[in-house]
Structures are given as C-alpha cells and as structure tokens.
C-alpha cells in the first residue's frame, strides 16, 4: 500500500491538485460561496482520474504485483489526503477572518466551524456519487464527474439558500464564531461522521464494481 501511494503521488497525481490547495485563500474574499473552494478539490480529483486514463495508469498498475482492489484503495487514500489537506489549508484563512473581525459573508455561509462540517458532508457526497460511477467504467471519467458535480452543485445551492431562508441555519449556523459554538461543533462532528460513512460506503461499492470490470 505504501508503494501504491508513492505511485499515486509520483506518477498519478495531477500537478494542479497542489495548486488548487492554495485556493483555500479564497476564504479571504469578503463575500463568496466558500463551498467553491472544495469544488476545486473535486476538480483536482477529476483531473487526476482523467490524466490517469490518458496515461494508462490502471493498466500500468495492473501489471504491478498488487491486488486489483489496491488500485481503488490507493486512489481513495490519495483523494482523502487531498480533501483533508484542502480543509487544513482553509482553516488558517478562516481564523484570519475571525481574528481580524472581517465582516460576515453576505452571499452565503460564513467561514465558521459549522461551514467546515457542511463542507465535509459535501465532499463525502462527491466521493459517493463520483467514485461509484467512475469504478463502473473507468473510461467514462467525464460522465462520472458530471454526476458528481450535479450532486454537489445541488447541495451548494440548497446549503447557501438555506442560510437565507431556514431560521436555524440563518440565526444559529450562519453566525460568527464563537457564537453558538457548541451547536456548530455538533454540525462539524456530524459532517465528519457522514463524510467518513459516505466515503467508506463509496469505497466498498467501488471495489465491488472494479473487481468485475473488464479492462
């Protein structure tokens, strides 16, 4: 597994993935739908899978002494690392907003603790939709990404409209930290749990689909 992960970083990872991590700085934009930052993470995942198809990554991997399921496992590990890195790099910018008392986000959700919980959920949703499609036919990367994008776009629209119309989201979640911190921490915890569950479920289904896929 260590070797496969080395292969993922050395050969498979699309270079833009690292550049997209710097887009966490977009949290400093005064008014912006901050979920877009994580859309760029999914774009990096898409680029990596797409360039994998063009570079015959799966064929190469299949000639190596590994089990077929290891290909899925290493890709999920890479993706989880990328997603967590994006969240980790976003946290300092959220802290800057808080430290310097920048005004709240007028477009949608504030960059607060609950936002990160909801972002975890969004990434979990992407992992579920994108990878379960992708591992049914690894040549159809674009189609899988389209479904993944539709899913998270709907999620972003609902989440951002929610903070304007749903009283709980508007008055409790979309507030500056540390107001309602306990509730927000619960949302963060729930987001992490759902992210883990959705990603794990997606992994299991992907392994099953990939095992029976003719390459």
């Amino acid at each position, binding site marked *: 597994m260590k*070797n496969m992960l*080395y*292969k993922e970083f*050395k*050969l498979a990872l699309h270079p833009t993935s690292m550049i997209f991590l710097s887009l966490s700085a977009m949290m400093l934009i005064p008014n912006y739908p901050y979920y877009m930052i994580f859309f760029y993470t999914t774009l990096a995942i898409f680029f990596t899978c797409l360039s994998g198809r063009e*570079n*015959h*990554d799966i*064929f*190469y991997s*299949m*000639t*190596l*002494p*590994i*089990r*077929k399921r290891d290909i899925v496992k290493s890709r999920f590990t890479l993706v989880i690392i990328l997603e967590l890195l994006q969240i980790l790099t976003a946290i300092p910018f959220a802290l800057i907003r808080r430290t310097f008392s920048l005004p709240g986000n007028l477009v949608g959700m504030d960059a607060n603790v609950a936002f990160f919980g909801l972002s975890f959920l969004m990434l979990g949703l992407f992992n579920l939709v994108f990878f379960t499609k992708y591992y049914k036919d690894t040549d159809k990367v674009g189609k899988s990404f389209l479904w993944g994008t539709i899913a998270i776009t709907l999620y972003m629209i609902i989440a951002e409209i929610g903070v304007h119309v749903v009283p709980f989201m508007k008055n409790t979640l979309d507030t500056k930290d540390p107001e309602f911190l306990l509730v927000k921490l619960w949302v963060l915890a729930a987001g992490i749990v759902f992210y883990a569950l959705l990603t794990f479920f997606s992994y299991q289904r992907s392994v099953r689909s990939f095992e*029976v896929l*003719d*390459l």
Partner: protein
Amino acid sequence: MSVLSVKDLCKKYDKFELNKVSFELEKGTITGFIGRNGAGKTTTLKSLLNLVHPNRGEIMFFGKSYNENEFEIKQKIGFVSGGIDYYPKKKIKTITGTTRRFYKNWDEKAYQHYMDLFKLDENKTPDELSAGMKVKYALVLALSHNAELLILDEPTSGLDPVSRDDLLDVFMGLSNDGITLLFSTHITSDLDKCADNIIYIKNGEILASTDLNSFLTEYKVLALTDEELTDELKSKLIGCKKSKHGFSALIRASDSENLDLAMSGADLESIVVHLEKE
C-alpha cells in the same frame, strides 16, 4: 507441475467468444501463441492476468489459483503488452524508480545490464522512444524482477530484424536459465527460430497446442500447376490458394506419401496462412 495451466477458459462477448481454451506451459520452455488479428490471443492473455474476467475456466500459476494468490503470483511473472504506453511524458528513471519498489526480487544489476544491452537512456521519456525501444524498455522492466514466467503480447513487433534477433537470443538465454516464456506474435519466423511449443488459436478456439517440430512435420506445402490440381487431390488440400505460378496448398504429411508432386517442408507462416484460408 506446470508453470501455467489453463483449463476450459471461456469468455463471451457480443460478437466474439473464447471457447474452452486450454493449454499448459512447462518450466523453461518458450511457447509461441499464434493466430490472426482478433483470434483471441490478447483476450486470452488478459484473462490470465484478471484484466478481463472469464465466464468459466481455471487458471493456475505455479499450481496456485490466480484469484487467491494474485499478489504472490504477480511477483513471479512479467507481463509485457506491446511497447510501454503508460506515462509517456514521465522520465524512464521516474517510472523505473516507482516500479522497482513493488518487487522484492528487483535485480538492479540485471536492470542496468538490459538497459545497456538495449541502449536505453534513463533520462528520456517513453514518448521520445521509437516503437521498438518502447518494447525493449517494457521488457527491461519485466526482466529485472527475476520473473519465472514472462507473458509477452507482441514483444517483437516494431523491432528491426537485428534487434529482433538480439531479443530472441535473450529469450533463449532466459529459457536456458529455467525461465518460461509465452509470447504472442504475428512474426512467425521468430517462433521458427526459438519456440519449443506452439499454441494456435483460431476464432477463439485452440486448434493446436503442441511442440513446434511435431506441428511442422504434420504438414507439407505443395506448389501446383493448373493440371496437377485434380478434384481428387482437392479433397486432401488445406487452404488451396492462387500463387504466382499456379497454386499453393497445405497437405497433411500422412496424405502426401504417395504423391509425385513438388512439395516442401512447411514453416509456421505457410501453415498458418493456409489454415486460415480454410
């Protein structure tokens, strides 16, 4: 114990079917896998490595089932499918640097030896290599982890005659060292030079799986004029076709005994060409 044993391998597609493919490879032998385009060679080879899933059949490497011992078996085999076509923009040293980590028996000395032998430059990318050099690099990777069985899909295509000959020498040397080779090819003269056994596949079915010499001595090639091509003779001929000076056909050695006609020993190419005409 066979190095590789395939029994009743079946794979059904909409327009093609691999039907009860069976063969065995013995240690230290070179086996040529021949058949025309679309006969099922690549599908068979891909099935061996789980790249496609057979509907039925049993595949055993070194007496062990592939599905249950994929990891262990892959350490002991090398698979080359044409030239290297993965990661064409990465430097060869990066690809090797990644690949070598996976093999506990990686032999750096052998790697350097074959890189020198094939005059490959580690600082080039696969895109900068000719078709023949791509095949050679793929072979270097397969030869550098002390594989006991090499499965090669068209390893000699795209190579110039001298490089092909060099490669066949390498194959024979490996075979003498006890390594087993299975390779598919369209260049039947390569097999005339080095193969011990032949597996001949046509329309997804194995027509012959035997040692090369008995396969060759089974047939004779006839060169016939219009007058010599009688109806009685026609019934014995295989794949009779027009040639520059009349007709040429294959005939079973047993049917040729009392014939007073110009005939010669058959080579693989003439056997395959005539059998495919049937």
